[in-house]
């Protein structure tokens, strides 16, 4: 990474070039390559999926005889068959990509943001700030995940926004702890001590010395949060607390289960389940490789 010395302003390594370096290192891990490949396909399908879908997801399919086309196994017109309500499984499945990724991404970004703010403030300022923020975190940690999610969604109403809100409330707390401990280490660095002696503001120190050195941990936590969020959304939808106006994989499974076809209509059950497993595994593969790369102790010799 040699840059051509120029006579203008001093420039350091841009965020882009460090991200590129990180990505290149990540690609040295075979599992990470598999993860990134799966994820890329999923993202692509999330973008173009709804256009690929041959039918409206909730459109009732009729047979030539004018009856509802219920539980048809895969055939030429319905590549993945139909549901018990006569909907096209492939169309629902393709719509599910976008929902899964939107929920995962938005919730994870919110989680990442809140846990970074809490973790950084708590770890950097310490003292009573830390006491107050960490007691709040302790309280948040004592919330039982599933009962809270069920009650909250039931009270707030089953919409995608509310599900994202609930997921955010549930997952920021662990992240705040992890990020706080990383900040505690960074705060003790001598260059941080020096910057204070040089008259730097807290904002300057956090932006220049603390955040760049914990960004990897934040990124790792965000990656993991995407997986948590997708799984949680799927669980809630499966329990019947999903947004009824959108199709998600969890909801497909819920309908299959509640209509009593979970055991027989494999074409209805397998695609969303498999997609969930693949998506979550790909995130874990990337996260694991990234963690290994970030933490030299885990690095192979």
């Amino acid at each position: 990474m040699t840059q051509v010395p120029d006579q203008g302003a001093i420039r350091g390594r841009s965020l882009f070039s460090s991200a590129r370096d990180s990505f290149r290192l990540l690609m040295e891990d075979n599992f990470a390559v598999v993860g990134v490949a799966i994820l890329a396909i999923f993202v692509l399908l999330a973008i173009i999926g709804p256009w690929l879908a041959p039918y409206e997801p909730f459109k009732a399919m009729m047979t030539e005889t004018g009856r509802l086309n219920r539980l048809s196994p895969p055939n030429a017109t319905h590549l993945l068959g139909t549901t018990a309500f006569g909907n096209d499984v492939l169309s629902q499945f393709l719509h599910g990509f976008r929902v899964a990724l939107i929920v995962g991404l938005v919730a994870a970004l919110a989680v990442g943001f809140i846990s970074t703010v809490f973790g950084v403030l708590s770890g950097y300022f310490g003292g009573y700030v830390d006491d107050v923020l960490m007691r709040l975190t302790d309280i948040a940690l004592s919330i039982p995940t599933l009962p809270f999610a069920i009650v909250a969604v039931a009270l707030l109403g089953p919409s995608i926004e509310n599900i994202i809100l609930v997921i955010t409330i549930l997952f920021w707390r662990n992240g705040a702890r992890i990020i706080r401990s990383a900040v505690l280490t960074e705060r003790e660095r001598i260059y941080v001590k020096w910057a204070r002696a040089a008259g730097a503001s807290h904002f300057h120190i956090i932006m220049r010395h603390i955040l760049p050195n914990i960004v990897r941990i934040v990124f790792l936590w965000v990656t993991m949060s995407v997986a948590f969020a997708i799984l949680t959304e799927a669980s809630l939808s499966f329990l019947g607390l999903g947004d009824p106006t959108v199709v998600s994989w969890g909801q497909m499974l819920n309908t299959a289960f509640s209509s009593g076809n979970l055991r027989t209509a494999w074409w209805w059950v397998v695609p969303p389940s498999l997609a969930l497993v693949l998506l979550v595994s790909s995130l874990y593969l990337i996260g694991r490789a990234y963690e290994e790369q970030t933490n030299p102790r885990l690095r192979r010799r």
Partner: protein
Amino acid sequence: MTDTTATRPVIEARDLKTHFQGRTGIFTALAGVTPPVARALDGVDISIREKEIVGLVGESGCGKSTLGMSLVRMYQPTSGSITFSGDDITHVEGRKLKDYRRQAQIIFQDPYSSLNPRLTIGQIIEEPLVIHGIGSATERRAKVERALDLVRIPAAENIHRFPSDLSGGQRQRIAIARALVLEPRFIVADEPVSMLDVSIQASVLELLDELSRELGLAVLYISHDIATVGYICKHVAVMYLGRIVEEGRAEDILAQPLHPYTQRLMAAIPRMDPGEVPERVELRGDVPSPMNVPPGCRFSSRCPYATELCRAVEPDLTDQPGGQRVRCHIHDDRAAKARPELERPQAGRITEIEDAGLLAQTAG
């Protein structure tokens, strides 16, 4: 420049005390439990002039780093005053404190963790200028290059490198350049060479010496190594448990230390010539905790010459005929006259000897 401005101290501390209160939680604080107080720095006077390097020597925990950190206002002194160019800056805040921070810089011991590994050398040295909003980007670059020049690191090929590309000695030079770029008048160098290899220590010390003279800097050079102090400092102060126990011209203190603690510090230096190895009295125990300062003379719990007087009355720092100042009853009879009933210590008369173990008995 007239003589009077040259002799006026750049920085001066009077009776400076910095005590640390152990932190308590919300609940213990509400319960009214007072945490223990560590008297890390307990009444120190020091003054440093332009182009002067003052050496501050002592063992870990003696308060020498606390003094350095207090002088640059990293720690808030508990009492006493710090005067910088005639202005009292002991309690300044906000804008004025930031102005002071521009003038007073600190260099730390560890060259490996004192530079942010994610920033280039250029960015690291530029940072103080950014913090203080000095100059345009191009002007800042010129200043950075000048600072690199001062510490003899070729700017062109190093400005875009990262700290990991440099050796320990080079990193310490970068840390010095970063301190110099703001054109400060006072620098605290806290053990700047103790983590460097012996073969390059001299070059960094020499650099400090030259910079002090060329740029008219006042430097407080903190070190546990009394042997290196003599090379760049004219004036040396020896600290023990939060107080200065002896100070004076470096050559006097190195050649003829008067305080038993300084004597033992000098004796501890390993000698290259076996014929020069001095007698080394075993000191009892360890340096007491600053939370539990012994009554009387602070060194009395370990001093081989200590008597009842030492354990009862703390000696003052008194002027000696040669110009040194020493805090010891052996060299000051005022306390002995005031309390004639207590036995006074005498030079060379060992009163307390440590059972050093069979191994140490005949060893030099």
